[in-house]
């Protein structure tokens, strides 16, 4: 049990923090220094009275010495290691997180920030290559520079250039230099605009998710028939692509709220045990509507935590609501075994699956998913598909053989997985493909 093994590390950390000698602590709890040394190096298990005595001497809560590390934080640390090669001691990530939670959080936060910045760099590279306005601006600058260079070269290189030609090329240089100044100014203005729009290192999708998360996914202004979408978007303070995405997401929220009025839906959810199939039947609405609506029920109102994920046909996650024990990686290549992707392979057929994440204490989740077409139906045009998945941590009835899933291959320790895309850096560093 890894978290038990780490209890010793935490005891040692506490003792060193307080500047206590090993022999002094050992004497205080009635054991030999060598036995305490074995405990501190995780070579002896510890519990019961001795654990409480040590906690008392060290001024710590016994539960703080034994509790496991946040699995989400561990996943993020492993993902950070995966992104930057295999030089980090991945097998000791849990130990680092237990001893230095602040530094561990910083590693995870920096890895997330780097992922977002990398995505932004890629966006800018794409923009340089394909943006027609930018291409036109650059063409204007380069054309002016070419003309100036060529005319100037004639003026300094031609010995027998009469006065008319000299005047003509001087005029050309003057005209092109003014044109170069104007086009350069326009180019700089164009390149500077997006930086002003979004100064933070988050993607537009994350900005939208942060908006909903800050409100616990419950927006009263969108629960009424006469909802003012413009006001909601303006109040959010988002600009550019994030504002556009928020409008799209808010429109869906409002449509769902009109189909499933909040009070009636809350009452029915309680009465029907949050069963999405029964709720869809009761209200005669689509399964995906019920899944999205359940995710808006607040823990503050006594409802269980429910996570949500939405993806398009490419598997790209377009919305994520995290809950303890559940997250999907947007950047590290998500595990394809999650029911949200299985649903995409059987459109219109709801999926119910219990899944389990690897870890010292395996996390079990209940998932409901469905994939459906979205947007206008058109002749001879394939429909755009969207898959929606609701996730309930700690389901009330535990099944015996939940489906093993992971966060992403690079940090997944499972062996023998037929869906593995690349080796894992966990454990022995390389799992056979």
């Amino acid at each position, binding site marked *: 049990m890894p978290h038990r093994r780490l209890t010793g590390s935490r005891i040692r950390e506490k003792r060193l923090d307080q500047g206590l000698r090993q022999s002094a602590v050992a004497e205080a709890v009635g054991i030999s220094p060598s036995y305490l040394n074995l405990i501190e190096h995780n070579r002896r298990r510890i519990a019961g009275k001795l654990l409480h005595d040590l906690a008392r001497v060290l001024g710590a809560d016994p539960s703080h010495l034994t509790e496991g590390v946040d699995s989400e934080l561990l996943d993020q640390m492993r993902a950070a290691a995966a992104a930057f090669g295999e030089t980090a001691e991945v097998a000791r990530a849990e130990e680092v997180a237990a001893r230095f939670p602040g530094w561990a959080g910083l590693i995870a936060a920096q890895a997330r920030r780097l992922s977002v910045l990398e995505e932004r760099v890629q966006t800018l590279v794409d923009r340089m290559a394909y943006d027609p306005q930018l291409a036109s601006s650059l063409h204007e600058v380069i054309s002016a520079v070419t003309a100036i260079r060529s*005319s100037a070269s004639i003026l300094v*290189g031609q010995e027998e250039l009469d006065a008319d030609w000299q005047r003509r090329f001087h005029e050309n240089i003057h005209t092109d230099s003014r044109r170069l100044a104007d086009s350069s100014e326009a180019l700089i203005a164009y390149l500077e605009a997006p930086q002003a729009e979004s100064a933070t290192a988050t993607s537009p999708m994350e900005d939208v998710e942060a908006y909903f998360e800050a409100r616990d996914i419950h927006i009263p202004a969108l629960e009424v028939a006469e909802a003012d979408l413009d006001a909601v978007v303006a109040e959010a303070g988002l600009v550019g692509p994030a504002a556009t995405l928020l409008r799209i997401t808010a429109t869906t929220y409002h449509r769902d709220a009109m189909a499933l009025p909040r009070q009636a839906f809350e009452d029915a959810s309680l009465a029907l045990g949050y069963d999405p199939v029964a709720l869809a039947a009761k209200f005669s609405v689509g399964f995906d509507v019920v899944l999205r609506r359940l995710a808006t029920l607040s823990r503050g109102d006594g409802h269980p935590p429910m996570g949500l994920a939405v993806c398009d046909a490419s598997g790209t996650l377009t919305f994520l609501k995290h809950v303890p024990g559940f997250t999907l990686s947007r950047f590290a290549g998500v595990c394809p075994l999650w029911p949200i992707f299985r649903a995409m392979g059987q459109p219109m057929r709801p999926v119910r699956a219990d899944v389990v994440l690897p870890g010292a204490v395996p996390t079990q989740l209940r998932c409901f998913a469905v994939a459906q077409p979205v947007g206008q139906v058109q002749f001879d045009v394939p429909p755009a598909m969207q898959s929606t998945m609701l996730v309930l941590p700690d389901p009330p009835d535990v099944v015996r053989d939940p489906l093993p899933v992971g966060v992403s291959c690079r940090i997944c320790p499972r062996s023998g997985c037929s869906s593995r895309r690349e080796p894992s850096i966990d454990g022995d560093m390389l799992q056979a493909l």
Partner: protein
Amino acid sequence: MGKRVLLIEDEPNIIEAISFILSRDGWTVHTHEDGETAMDKVLAFPPDLIILDVMLPGRSGFDILRDVRAHAQTGRIPVMMLTARGQDKDRELAGRLGVNHFMTKPFSNTEVRDHVRHLMEA
């Protein structure tokens, strides 16, 4: 009279500069600024060399090059392309279409003169 160069380019001051230096070298230079009617000009004035800009009003230089190579009367005329976009994919496309030389702006007058001379003598 020297061999004939057709310069298809829409930047007036580039046209003037290139025309000037090539004329001084003894070539007979004709110019054309519109992509849409460029092929008509090529057929009406079959040149010994075409200098062809990529970004032209009406039609791209790549489309014009494709037509030049497809036409029996013009298929063997050497073509030198000028572009402000030095991307590999543009260079590859021009190569596949049969360009003889691909020159990225801003070029020097010496480069233009040397490559024109080389293509004319080839």
